[in-house]
């Protein structure tokens, strides 16, 4: 990746921000203009994301396309290069950028059918996307946190205004839990900056600076829980099922698909890379939290009858794998964690897209109320089965690649936990297959004879997501190469 590609990285979050300004200037009545604008903008983001991913050379430097613009320096508490607008990509960032590109494209498509204040919806959605992209490409601690919070900021209104079931409760709970978690990140950043004592928020400089071991031991759990809450980490996951159940389709897609990944990504950026000694000390804690989340989420999902709540708890379970993988502290387990972030993002987005496409017609998400849907909505069912099979880890689909890495890593580090992780996969298979048999097959419930197949736009979005699942499933090398070299080179103290 050439240094000039830094402009592409910059454009990744400036394009959605610019789009919000253009949208704000567009009259609300001009639906065609809004659709055109968001269509072009999301396509541009998708193309740039694919470009950034493919251009990243995993045999080259760790951070590529690095570009920095001095923002504020030599004033007050800031020294040389105090705050810079600095972008750069590593293998993990490249993976996450690709994920965001895929999901925002599909998410924009399915949001076109929103009638109520569509313009405001897209403005808020794109502010969130700008924040998400920013997190993945920014190399300055101040801007990282600014963009991280930017991604969370619009969630309240997105859910409270456009959501469904218990939307105000879900929105307020989500917002307050996430912002409360940010308290811990704030403290972690303040502590790390003052302990490093170099007067700059440049992440590369901070990585090289010596942060005293005791400070790292103190601050790492704050970063882990602070960012982990956004990643749906047990025991601070409870906003996630409620929030996802309440959120509108595209928001669930982006939120579970990419925003939660910002949390896990934050743990790597601010935890593992910034405080490696703290990470080494606390890694077993991550394993414990991760396996509890995986089991707890899966068992809770067994009991859910609401499709979205089931998916929400399933997300908690799958994100548990991510923390488990990170805690193994070996390259294969940690690579699995990042792969899982990607794989889970795509399949969850597909789940929410499909649930939304059906719920908009039926206004019902109770699994027992459905039966024989495969006859009424065959295309919908096929996509749903693909997402489900990826979720339960069928070989050839994305989930398998990720989970197999995590399981191997876990067996190497903690064999007993590895056994529990495989058990979790079995529970996952149980609730998914049971849901399939209940809702899709069996005798058709005539109550739903009015349901139509999902629209062409939704099919296009679903195809994009399902295609990504298949590609990662059969040809994971591009992902694995980028992620594993980055992890091996950038995190001190990982074993193979």
């Amino acid at each position, binding site marked *: 990746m050439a240094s000039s590609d830094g402009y592409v990285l910059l454009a990744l979050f400036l394009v959605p921000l610019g789009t919000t300004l253009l949208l704000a200037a567009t009259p609300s009545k001009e639906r065609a203009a809004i659709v055109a604008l968001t269509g072009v903008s999301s396509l541009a983001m998708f193309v740039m994301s694919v470009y950034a991913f493919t251009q990243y050379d995993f045999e080259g430097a760790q951070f590529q396309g690095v570009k920095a613009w001095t*923002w*504020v320096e030599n*004033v*007050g*508490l800031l020294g040389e290069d105090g705050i810079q607008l600095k972008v750069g990509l590593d293998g993990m960032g490249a993976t996450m950028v690709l994920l965001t590109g895929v999901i925002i494209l599909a998410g924009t498509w399915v949001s076109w059918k929103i009638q109520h204040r569509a313009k405001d919806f897209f403005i808020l959605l794109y*502010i969130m996307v700008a*924040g998400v992209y920013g997190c993945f490409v920014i190399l300055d601690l*101040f801007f990282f*946190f*600014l*963009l991280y*919070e*930017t991604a969370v*900021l619009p969630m*309240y*209104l997105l859910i*409270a*205004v456009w959501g469904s079931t218990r939307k*105000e409760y879900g929105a*307020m709970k989500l*917002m*307050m839990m996430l*912002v*409360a978690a*940010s*308290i811990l990140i*704030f*403290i972690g*950043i*303040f*502590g790390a*900056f*003052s302990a490093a004592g170099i007067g700059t928020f440049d992440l590369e400089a901070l990585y090289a600076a010596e942060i005293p071991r005791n400070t790292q031991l103190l601050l790492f759990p704050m970063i882990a829980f602070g960012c982990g809450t956004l990643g749906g980490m047990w025991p601070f996951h409870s906003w996630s099922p409620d929030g996802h159940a309440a959120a509108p389709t595209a928001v669930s897609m982006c939120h579970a698909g990419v925003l939660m990944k910002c949390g896990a990504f934050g743990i790597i950026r601010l935890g593992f890379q910034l405080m490696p000694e703290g990470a080494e000390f606390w890694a077993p804690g991550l394993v414990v939290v991760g396996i509890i989340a995986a089991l707890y989420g899966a068992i809770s999902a067994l009991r859910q009858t609401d499709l979205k709540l089931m998916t929400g708890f399933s997300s908690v379970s799958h994100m548990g794998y991510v923390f488990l993988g990170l805690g193994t502290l070996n390259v294969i387990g940690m690579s699995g964690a990042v792969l899982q972030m990607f794989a889970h993002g795509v399949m969850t987005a597909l789940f929410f897209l499909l649930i939304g496409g059906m719920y908009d017609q039926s206004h019902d998400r109770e699994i027992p109320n459905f039966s024989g849907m495969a006859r009424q909505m065959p295309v919908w069912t096929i996509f749903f089965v693909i997402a489900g099979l990826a979720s339960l880890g069928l070989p050839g689909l994305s989930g398998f690649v990720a989970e197999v890495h995590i399981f191997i890593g876990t067996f190497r580090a903690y064999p007993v936990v590895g056994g529990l992780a495989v058990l979790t996969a079995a529970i996952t298979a149980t609730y998914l297959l049971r849901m399939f048999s209940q809702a899709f097959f069996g005798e058709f419930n005539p109550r739903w004879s009015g349901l139509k197949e999902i629209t062409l736009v939704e099919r296009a979005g679903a195809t994009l997501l399902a295609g990504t699942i298949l590609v990662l499933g059969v040809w994971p090398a591009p992902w694995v190469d980028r992620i594993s070299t980055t992890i091996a080179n950038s995190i001190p103290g990982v074993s193979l």
Partner: protein
Amino acid sequence: VSLDYGLLIPEIILAVTAFGVLGLDAFRRELKTSDTSLAIVAAVGAVVAFAASLLYLDRDPETFGGLIAVDDYTTFFRLLFTAVVFVVILGSFEYVNKNISHAGEFYSLLLLSTVGATFMAAAQELLTAYISIELLSFSLYVAVSLAKKDTRSAEAGLKYVLLGGVASAMLLYGLSFIYGTAGSTSYDEIGAAFTTAAEGEPELAVLVGLALVIAGLGFKASAVPFHMWTPDAYEGAPLPITAYLSATSKAATFALLLRLFGGPLLPLIDEWRWMMASLAVVTMVVGNLIALQQTNIKRLLAYSSIGQVGFMLMALATLSDASSSALLLHMSGYLITNLAVFTAVIAFYNKTGREEIADFRGLAETQPYLAVVITVGLFSLSGMPLLAGFASKFILFQAAASAGYLWLSAIAVIMSTVSLYYYLAVIRQMYVYEPTGDTARWSPSPMAYALTGVLLVGIVVVGLYFGPLYEAADRATSVLFAAAP
């Protein structure tokens, strides 16, 4: 002693304009003056004073007879306060035309209190500082009770003047202790006296003096537990005066605190640091928690401003070059944000005559632009990103953490998060609920549009590109520490 009146031109302009406005009002019938023309004269006076203040940029510090310093610090606050009074005048004339029967007094009191505010920032001597405080306070005592048709206004004025008198007495008593131990009222000589005396145990008189001074000024800044007057005064005062109270009156007190404690009293920092720190903690905790149960928008903003005072006091508790420039940055961002919110609320009040939080129901449908302004402003106050509040709080809290007070910034971040909850309650009324009653769309006045538009841009600029403002703040405060012994 040099008495160069050329140093005081901005204040002279303000004072002359203030009396000019009074004169125009007195001969209203002969000169056919309207309320709006008074506002225009006052606004022009503020602009001219602003322009005149610019002349003092980048000049070597000078003093007017050792009483008033004119340096970058003074210039910073002159620019800030004249800008604030300009915004308040423009934002209020529609309100004044409708609700205030003494427009001349209204505008001249605003201008006179601004003179007091800039002298508070510039004072180099205890009595000058005290007289400046009283100039600001007396103007505001009257201004608060100007809404004569509203009984709450008279009540607010009475409470404010009585409690303000007690605070002034405490402050003056405290100043007399400091004078008694240091032997002078001049900042420079006090600083020199305390530097030599800093060895060994401090005298009890010094401690009592410091405590009384902090209590007295804490009252003016509405720090808990000296905040009792604030919610009533905010609620009873005419809305533009509430805006002004929350802006200039607070900032001027901090300007004075910073010059006094960052200069002559700096040698005693170990004696007063814990007082400031505990005041900061109590203020931010109590202010933000009580704000949670408010139903009136003015009272909500009153308690939220008390919470903000707690954050600002934190900078004094961790006083250093870095934290004082962070304080000025935060204060400027806070003023811009607060004025945006208040200007929007005034425009809302002009249309509806209501000020309960529940009255904002469905504003996103009936007046989406004001809803955006208020939302952005409240998000900025709570420290959400892309907006002024995030950047300035980040720098302010980091400064405290870097000074070794990570626990203090931890409390501040927690309280900042609490504040988000009650701001969201307002935002929820506007966006989540449908309007009741008259659901027709309406438009605020062009002036309200323009003013809030400019302030909105200001909020985003300070939130994203705060470098220039931060550098100005840094240059202003470096004067203090360069002069410190």
